[in-house]
């Protein structure tokens, strides 16, 4: 909502400065978005006069001008290309070092084709007044040389723009803003004086509401008046300026008057040329397929839920949104019908939104226009039309629905103010604020007010709304801040289990050299399909782009896309991870927390790139498996509860991948190399070692405070190495598991430290070397005791894995 300082002062008697007004508007909830003071904006642009013009010697299209920039001073020389330069013309002059807003540059003294040019003569475009750049601005002859130019440009008023929240339609008029400022103590609201015309004759046009008994009709009041014998013309200067100052283009007196009242009183009106109408007007729902050409010169098709103004021949206007070309006033209009109505906000909003029409009328009607302003609007327009265009007014005709909203009455206990805001405000202050805002206190008993809500307020429905009115005017800054009391009992756990998992896992994974990234929750549908997407329900109805259509089933697509991006940008040997939600169905349980990572090139855990003391190694499936184990064990899972499964999802290389489960069915992680076909598809150069862990599926770790008693430390472990030869198809993990089962009591651990194939073994054989760690019951056991246990292990290997001891 834009208005000017002087316009505001027509409704508000005040001595407050612009800055005081701005501060107050912010404080009471009308957020000031912009203040344009032409005196400031145009302070460096002055009036000058061209005293001599000749063609530039070296350029056909340029003029060499002598310009008088101050009385009693020698003229300066300026090179200018405008076609309208001529001797005697008063122009807008900018001296060197002036910032030109329309060009976003500061001009300097410059030599243009051999002639030194001292400054610039400006066009409207250069001053951001309009896009006009065909010539320089021509000021009136009475402009005084050397004076600031803004008053001659018509900018003599400070423009203020406020953002109006959706609940405050009443402040989309200058009068409404003045009322707010008066309530906040910044001046006195001037009473509205308007003439009531009895009418010189009966209005020959009828108005009707045609809604067939709907409880809430799209239009609840429709009134109008004919004015005969008008002479449409250009608006007087004051009216043109007023509209121009807020960025509206003057059209003709009849249109300008309705625009003026829209902005002044927040009362949209419409004027019809009655020579283009039949006699009977009505407000009704549109008929199927009804079309019309609107004032924006576009053709719209109405919907049966749209409210229209129609005559016998069909629709004339989309009610409360936009008028039509067929019935619009023109310069030769002689008889005009002023329409003033009340429309249902929800219906106006729906229509305008569907058709994408933004208009001043829509903006006001969709928020709610003062229900008492229907007649006021007609009378104000009548006075202005008769004054500017002449003519003779008829009586007013009107149609009112039986369910026209009535006055709303609220009970308001004064104690509610302190109950919600924490501050007690004395009754006279409360009373004054409410009355200034237009609330009518009908009665007050035992601290309870009976309040009539003013007709312009549609946002007041309960006690809390009244409290807001009082404290926003009283001053939010006066509310003291008060420490939140400590709850008198033990706090609930502060972090949820999931939060704890998130925080721990994030730093854990990052500590393994991964850089955390965040990618979109929605991805390309094909990518979702490639990575396990199964439910089309997870496809958005209205995605913002084809790259963001479907909720991600996995974190890997985002990581892979980022890997490709980073490779393209010259990075190699990097590790990225993401921790976030994945989506499997729409219901409550359809969302799971996952962590996934990708390593490329030589980005192994403890080593990256070539080192003089270590040979370089590229990432393989084992890095991914190592990451999975490191994370799961650090999160408190028991190594022995984890089962590695030799199968994998389709996006993994089938030979270089596996899964980790809690048992065979309950898979909690995938690891391995990305499938080569995806390496090609995503245009990645190096193989990717990837993992993904389903954090939501991990068992909840129970934290026990009490630790078990401390065992005697064992300081006499015995270490022996054994190597077995087995068939190459027997998984090493199986051999290891068998060995661990051989003597659980005395074997503390077994570690596989070497895998060998080649010389000395058959082609289909491999050798697995293990370190056996034994726990003897007493120190220094007999060699025989050790031998017996090793024999048990060897026999187990022979029996379960067809292994033989390698000598």
């Amino acid at each position, binding site marked *: 909502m834009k208005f000017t300082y002087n316009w505001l002062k027509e409704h508000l008697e005040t001595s407050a400065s612009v800055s005081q007004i701005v501060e107050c508007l*912010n404080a009471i*909830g009308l*957020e000031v978005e912009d203040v344009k003071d032409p005196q400031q904006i145009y302070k460096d642009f002055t009036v000058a006069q061209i005293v001599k013009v000749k063609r530039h010697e070296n350029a056909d299209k340029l003029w060499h001008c002598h310009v008088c920039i101050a009385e009693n001073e020698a003229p300066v020389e300026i090179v200018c290309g405008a076609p309208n330069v001529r001797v005697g013309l008063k122009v807008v002059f900018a001296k060197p070092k002036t910032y030109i807003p329309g060009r976003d540059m500061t001009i300097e003294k410059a030599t243009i084709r051999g002639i030194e040019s001292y400054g610039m003569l400006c066009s409207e475009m250069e001053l951001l007044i309009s896009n006009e750049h065909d010539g320089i601005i021509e000021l009136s002859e009475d402009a005084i040389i050397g004076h600031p130019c803004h008053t001659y440009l018509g900018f003599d008023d400070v423009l203020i723009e406020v953002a109006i929240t*959706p*609940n405050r339609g009443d402040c989309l008029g200058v009068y409404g803003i003045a009322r707010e400022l008066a309530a906040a103590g910044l001046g006195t609201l001037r009473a509205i004086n308007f003439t009531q015309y009895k009418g010189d004759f009966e209005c020959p046009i009828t108005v009707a509401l045609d809604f067939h008994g709907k409880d809430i009709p799209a239009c609840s009041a429709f009134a109008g008046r004919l004015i005969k014998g008008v002479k449409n013309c250009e608006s007087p200067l004051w009216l043109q300026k007023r509209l121009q100052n807020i960025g509206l283009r003057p059209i003709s007196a009849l249109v300008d008057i309705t625009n003026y009242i829209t902005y002044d009183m927040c009362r949209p009106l419409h004027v019809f040329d009655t020579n283009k109408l039949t006699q009977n007007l009505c407000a009704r729902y549109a008929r199927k397929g009804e079309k019309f050409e609107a004032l924006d010169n576009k053709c719209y098709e109405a919907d049966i839920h749209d409210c229209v103004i129609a005559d016998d021949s069909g629709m004339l206007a989309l009610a409360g949104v936009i008028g039509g070309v067929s019935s619009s006033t023109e310069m030769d209009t002689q008889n005009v019908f002023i329409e003033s109505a009340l429309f249902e906000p*929800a219906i106006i909003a*729906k229509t305008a*939104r569907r058709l994408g029409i933004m208009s001043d009328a829509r903006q006001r009607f969709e928020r709610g226009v003062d229900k008492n302003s229907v007649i006021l609007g007609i009378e104000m327009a009548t006075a202005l039309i008769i004054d500017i265009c002449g003519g003779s007014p008829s009586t007013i005709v009107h149609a009112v629905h039986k369910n026209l909203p009535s006055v709303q009455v609220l009970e308001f206990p004064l104690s509610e103010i302190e109950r*919600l*805001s*924490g*501050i007690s405000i004395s009754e006279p202050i409360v009373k004054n604020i409410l009355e200034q805002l237009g609330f009518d206190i009908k009665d007050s008993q035992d601290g309870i007010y009976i309040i009539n809500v003013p007709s312009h307020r549609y946002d007041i429905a*309960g006690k*809390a709304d009244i*409290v*807001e009115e009082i*404290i926003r005017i009283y001053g939010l*800054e006066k*509310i003291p*801040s*008060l420490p*939140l*009391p400590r*709850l008198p009992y033990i*706090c609930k*756990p*502060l*972090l*949820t289990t999931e*939060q704890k998992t998130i*925080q721990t896992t*994030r*730093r854990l994974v*990052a*500590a*393994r*050299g*991964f*850089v*955390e*990234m*965040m*990618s979109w929750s*929605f991805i390309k549908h094909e990518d979702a399909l490639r990575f396990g997407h199964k439910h089309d*329900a997870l496809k*958005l*109805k*209205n995605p*913002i782009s084809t790259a*963001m259509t479907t909720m991600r089933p996995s974190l890997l697509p985002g990581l892979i*896309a*980022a890997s490709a*991006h980073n490779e393209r*940008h010259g990075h190699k040997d990097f590790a*990225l991870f993401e*921790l976030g*939600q994945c*989506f499997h169905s729409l219901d409550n349980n*359809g969302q799971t927390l996952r962590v996934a990572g990708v390593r490329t090139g030589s980005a192994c*855990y403890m080593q990256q790139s070539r080192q003089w003391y270590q040979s370089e190694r590229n990432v393989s499936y084992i890095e991914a498996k190592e990451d999975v184990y490191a994370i799961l064990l650090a999160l408190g899972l028991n190594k022995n509860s984890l089962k590695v499964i030799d199968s994998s999802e389709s996006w993994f290389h089938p030979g270089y991948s596996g899964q980790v489960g809690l048992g065979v069915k309950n898979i909690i992680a995938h690891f391995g190399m990305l499938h080569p076909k995806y390496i090609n598809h995503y245009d990645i150069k190096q193989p990717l070692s990837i993992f993904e862990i389903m954090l939501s599926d991990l068992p909840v770790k129970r934290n026990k405070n009490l630790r078990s008693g401390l065992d005697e430390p064992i300081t006499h472990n015995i270490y022996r190495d054994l190597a077995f030869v087995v068939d190459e198809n027997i998984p090493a993990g199986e051999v290891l598991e068998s060995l661990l089962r051989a003597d659980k009591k005395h074997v503390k651990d077994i570690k596989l430290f070497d895998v060998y194939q080649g010389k000395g073994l058959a082609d289909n054989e491999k050798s697995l070397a293990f370190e056996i760690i034994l726990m003897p019951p007493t120190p220094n056991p007999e060699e025989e005791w050790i031998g017996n246990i090793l024999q048990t292990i060897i026999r187990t290997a022979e029996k379960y894995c067809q292994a033989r001891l390698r000598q």
Partner: protein
Amino acid sequence: MIETIITEMQSHIQQLGKIVDIAEVERLRVKVLGKKGIITGAMKVLSTLEPQERKKLGIRLNELKTEFLQKLTATKMLLEETYLEQAILQEKVDVTLPVSSYDPIREGKIHPVSQGMEEIIEIFMSLGFSVAEGNDVETDYHNFTALNFPPSHPAREMHDTFFFEQDSEKHGQYLLRTHTSPTQIHTMLNQSPPYRIIAPGRTYRCDSDQTHTPMFHQVEGLVIDTDITLSHLKWVLEIFCKTYFEVEDLDMRYRPSFFPFTEPSLEVDIQCKKDKKSLQIGTGNDWLEILGCGMVHPQVLKNVGIDPDNYKGFAFGMGIDRLVMLKYGIPDLRAFFEGDLHWLRHFGFSVLDIPCMYRQAKQ
């Protein structure tokens, strides 16, 4: 006989001082103290002597043996030391050879939004809040209706909110939550008052330009009890902003505003200094809007079955991404979700930079 042995011992003791080869020391030890050595031989001779003579010479011989042993040990130690020193002189490396420039702890980075989220949680936990969570996929009821959005509210349009085709069983269309506020509803429906929670998470709106991304992060706050007022809201937000931005005397401004689910509603600005290149929080004469808040609307309380005449409280919501940009001077929101390593390494946080309220004081 014994006299010869004594002379021989004396000569060996003298000899010890001259030995330079450690093997020679050992040979001499065997010669003197070995099983077939001089001392053993002397013992045999002694046993043939008269007791008086035996005692006298025995003592003498023992003195010599002790002297020999002492000198032997000393010589051995001296020689060993010399040997070690010489051997060490052969052991030499080039200490200027570089160590690996890579260390996983330094290489790993935490995303600024994660860091910000943890910082925010940390501060609110110190004020007695606990953390609640909600799903990204929500229903029309929880995202709008329960929060007092009228049926025709523009936020419910396709150009504002992401929808799914399918309807939920009881709660209207499925959609991506447009704010973290549905967590308020879930919390109030599933637990009984009082409430004191924050709920961080991802939120979505059909918006994409220089300063908006279709996905962003918010944190919601909700405090409901019988005695909570706007005064408490002010205090909580003041403590939060001052702690988060690490500015003790941060000026804040409250402006009345409008949200369907709060009444009265407020917007909060913080003091800042803007110029073309930078934005500084806690100084200057400009204001920067950072959050919206208010007293929970009585209708919202009624919707979850709480009596608004008995219970009351406040709610607030703020954009985490923006808070992070402001605190750490990160210019471009869109880069947050691009996964660009150059950006992540520059703006990301160290693994060891664990949010803690008692950070190093500002200089």
